[in-house]
């Protein structure tokens, strides 16, 4: 197994764990100032980096699969866009307001994630960390 590849994968996992923790802290603090207004997106914001970041990173480490850099870049950007979009949705719901333009951020996030997965599946065969 290439040490640098593994290090990079572990670093990515740690970053996603950090983002998950940050989201949990942010939503807890924000909910504290929301006058009791409940927003699903804000309360469960941490699930986005957890399910879309931490979990896939663990799985990729376990199966020793290294995605193409372009696929990784597209995917991580998509996850970032979705996290920000969910966070903003929470902020808007608590404030009882909205922005018609937020949907484009979610759409971009989903499209980028799909593109990342597509590039990973169709443009590159599997490569082992610990290959020959």
């Amino acid at each position, binding site marked *: 197994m290439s040490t640098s590849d593994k290090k990079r994968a572990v670093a990515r996992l740690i970053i996603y764990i950090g983002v998950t923790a940050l989201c949990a802290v942010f939503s807890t603090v924000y909910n504290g100032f929301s*006058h009791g*207004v409940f927003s699903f997106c804000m309360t469960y914001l941490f699930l986005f980096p957890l399910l879309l970041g931490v979990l896939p990173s663990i799985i990729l480490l376990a199966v020793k699969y290294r995605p193409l850099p372009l696929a990784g870049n597209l995917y991580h950007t998509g996850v970032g866009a979705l996290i920000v979009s969910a966070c*903003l949705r929470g902020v808007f719901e608590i404030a009882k*307001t*909205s*922005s018609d333009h937020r949907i484009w951020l979610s759409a971009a996030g989903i499209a980028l994630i799909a593109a990342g997965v597509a590039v990973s599946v169709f443009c590159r065969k599997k490569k082992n960390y610990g290959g020959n």
Partner: protein
Amino acid sequence: MKKKTSALWGIISGLLIASYAVFLLLDAFVIPRDIVKVEDIAPDNSLSYTSKVESAVSSAENSDLSEISDTVSSDQSGTVANEPVITENSYTDENISITITSDRRYDTDIYIADIIVKDPSYLKAGLAEGSFGRNVKQKTSEMAVEYGAVLAINGDYYGYRDRGYVMRNGYLYRDKARHDEIDDALAVFADGSMRVVKESEVSAEELKDSGAVQIFSFGPGLLSDGKFTVESGDEVKQSMNSNPRTAIGMVEPLHYVFVVSDGRTSKNIGLSLYELAWVMKDAGCTLAYNLDGGGSSTMWFCGRIVNNPTSHTYQPDERSVSDIVYIG
């Protein structure tokens, strides 16, 4: 090289997402848009509004409404006053009679304004900065002074949302219906009557054609035909159960009730919608409607704020809002 490319990608995409997020926040909270100045539509609008109300009043003169309006001028020991008689908690002139009482119920201070007007045109709505638009805001007290109000409360804060009917003083500014679970709108008609309708069932144009001069879009309706239309536990979206509140109600055409409650402090818990409905019912209302509450809740009367508005910091502070409902 790959590392550099990935880092550059991360920086650029991060900046793009952050920039768009800032734009969304500014769009939702700060940037004024879709502006329509009242003065630009006023000439035609005032004619149509006046003619609608005059027509409604003339048809009401032969009805029971004239009895109600007569009570205004014969109020205050039966004297007809050309000059208004103003006390700390009341206002009377030949066209308007207002009495404000305060009550403490449900661990909350509640302010109730009982209003009788001679004709429906004394119940008006004012827009912040004299304009319709998203994120156009002004304090209730400032608007009240500018519009020459005697009594004012905050309205539905339409400018915080992109949907929901907005009609003010006869002019239909927005006809986009809400898609929310609660989509009750309050229509005030030229004859002084009120009706709570569902935006999913009645279009704004239909309301306009049937004589509406004001449409407020917040809700829910609290009372209709003297019956409760909210239940214990009902709430505006996912809000907590007790809040500062603002409500408008009608005892009968030309006889209205404005209610504002304090809340969000250790001294004042605030009201649930069901408790607010009870307050309106006890004030004699047959119809009542919940307007924007929380930090927006403000009642202004003859130069002073009656209640204790609280901002998001839980400190006494008056919030800037999109609109007011006023008597004047």
